[in-house]
């Protein structure tokens, strides 16, 4: 049995157990923390920085997804500073590639779009980087549109951790980083892809979708993947 501990979140005392992440304790207590790279059941990487929290005694902000709770921890999840930072981060996401909602399959069914609404982003103050990104439609059933990719690497992780295929990985550095199939080959030529479609369902944006999807009519079933992970007892 893990030890029972008491922590405080936004001033409210909460009894919980050691070994849990701040994020999972928040979820259990209906405290909403914005996340982008986190996906229930997959290894957390702490890349999107949206779940950063203030923890008393730490001079750095800590990601709720990878930080474990400890006795007497005092956590703040929604200070004015954090809210401002989250908005700036979402603006950075939008400025990085082409995230024009009006011509996106995921319009109205997109976690990035929801996030912009949640953090109150009305416009992007930073210049758009207008990066040239490819659309790879070589796969018989699916498409990857790098313009919409936010490098959350959920697809990389679900492919490696749940499907066990490891078709996806990441190449290059900095803002030139891209998700790749096998050794940077067209998706359609992948020797590892099983065409299972798990990556499509965990993708938070319109970067991965099945052929035949039209603007604003994309269906995604992330809960199916979570269900699968739970039933298989991965992690």
């Amino acid at each position, binding site marked *: 049995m893990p030890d029972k501990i008491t922590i405080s979140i936004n001033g409210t005392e909460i009894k919980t157990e050691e070994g849990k992440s701040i994020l999972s304790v928040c979820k259990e207590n209906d405290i909403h923390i914005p996340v982008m790279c986190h996906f229930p059941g997959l290894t957390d990487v*702490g890349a999107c920085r949206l779940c950063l929290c203030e923890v008393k005694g730490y001079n750095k902000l800590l990601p709720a997804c990878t930080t474990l709770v400890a006795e007497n921890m005092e956590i703040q999840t929604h200070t004015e500073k954090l809210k401002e930072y989250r908005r700036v981060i979402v603006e950075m996401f939008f400025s990085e590639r082409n995230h024009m909602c009006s011509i996106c399959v995921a319009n109205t069914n997109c976690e990035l779009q929801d996030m912009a609404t949640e953090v109150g982003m009305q416009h992007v103050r930073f210049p758009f980087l207008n990066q040239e990104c490819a659309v790879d439609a070589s796969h018989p059933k699916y498409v990857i549109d790098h313009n919409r990719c936010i490098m959350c690497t959920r697809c990389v992780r679900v492919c490696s951790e749940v499907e066990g295929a490891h078709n996806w990985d990441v190449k290059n550095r900095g803002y030139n980083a891209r998700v790749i199939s096998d050794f940077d080959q067209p998706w359609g030529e992948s020797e590892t892809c099983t065409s299972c479609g798990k990556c499509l369902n965990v993708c938070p944006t319109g970067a991965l979708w099945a052929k035949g999807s039209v603007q604003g009519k994309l269906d995604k079933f992330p809960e199916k993947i979570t269900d699968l992970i739970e039933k298989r007892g991965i992690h």
Partner: protein
Amino acid sequence: MNTNELKELSEKIVEEGKAFKKKVCVCCGAGCLSSGSEAVLESMKQTIKDKGLESTVQVIPSGCMGPCNQGPLVKILPEETIYEKLDGDAVEALVDDHIVKDTPQEDKLLFSEYRDKPFVDSREDPFFKRQKRIVLENCGRINPESIEDYIGVNGYQALAYALHRSSPEHIIGEIKLSRLRGRGGAGYPTGFKWETVYRHVADQKYVVCNADEGDPGAFMDRSILEGDPHRVLEGMILAGYAIGATQGYAYIRGEYPAAIKRFEEALKQARKKGFLGRSIMGSDFSFDVEIRIGAGAFVCGEETALLASIEGKRGTPRPRPPYPAESGLWGKPTLINNVETFANIAPIVISGGTAFGEVGTPKSAGTKVFALAGKVQISGLIEVPMGTNLRDIIFEIGGGIPGGHKFKAAQTGGPSGGCIPEQHLDHPVDYESLQELGSIMGSGGLIVMDETSDMVDVARYFMEFCVDESCGKCIPCRVGTKQMFDLLTKIYEGRATDIDLATLEQLAHVVKDTSLCGLGMSAPNPLLSTLRFFKEDYIQHLKDSALANV
């Protein structure tokens, strides 16, 4: 080899050395090598042979002596005379004058162009006088490719002492007493780190040496590895003994071929002599070290990215905690220290922690190696006690600003550091004071700038470096550095407004506070510190753009 055999060997080597009247060290550090010191070494060996001096004059290739832009350098012991800018043709006359006739060649003495009367005993020159050499003690005096040379200067005595007359707890105690702090930049107390790894119970632990020195203008670790590889190795073995590890890795960047070659050679020699491998020096302690070569990513100097790279994965950092001391290589407790930190270990074990702690300041003990570069008369590798002020380093050791120019800023800590203006030059250099000034100690790069430098351009240069080197894992560093670089370019090119400057400042704080690893967290430092101390440079650019827009 056991303790007695080591002692005998050491005495024998010292005795043999006495047979030579003189020892000629030809610098074969990367700086001197690239200015042609190999030819000097060959010519020196040939000349000594031709003149029949082989039995009285010993010629060795050595590591870095310090004043790198004066090379190729040759040091003659025991009189400590250094000659500069030699080539193969100059060697014969030098041998004739200095060794045969015993009259130093004045015009070839070190710093002859800067000093009215250059010093025959280099130790009296201001460049060396203010320095204190602990880490670089053997650099430039022994042959880095000879384990015998190292043993002749008390090499592996610390290991022998630790294995046979001490205990891991005692060694850790001494390191704690010394108050040594990590030389990689952050300055975490080394003793506490060792103790943490020591306390974690695990079937396997690792020691990792971080030699992925990547700051532009920094070459401390390279010089140490090239000049005294056994010292670093001995530090690693001692660490392995203290924390209970059996395997070590040295992660050396691929751009340092000479360092890799010499460290590899050191490993072979140490294995042969029984300092590495099974049952080291007859004890029941076994430890071995492997080299891993970095493939050119700056971010792999960040400890968690470095560990990922050793594991064969993509070199990207992961959030801490858990720290490597708890969960490092392959999830096992791992001690990771920088080259210079390991080079400090043997002297601490030999002279004791208290004695080591007497050098430096109360909070930062010992010495620090700096790579002095930029607009300074004498650049090169220096080692000074912690707490020495920047003014002494730049004006006394470095000889001031050349060309009649005025000092403007000293940049420490490379792309993670900041620019320090004239009014703060008298601050003693240690971890805390540099942090207060918005810079960091970093690994030891120190770049001097004069009034011709535009600080917006300087900030832009370092930002460009971070844009290139960001691994792309977390959004603030991946996009934030690029946006900051674009805004800096806009300001630099005179197209910006006050709003751009405000956006830039806000962005800098967001990237600093929200990035995943040290690279992103410190990437805004050059920008923020120039904004703090040299805002007039930014204002000037904004004024220029306002004029252009009228």
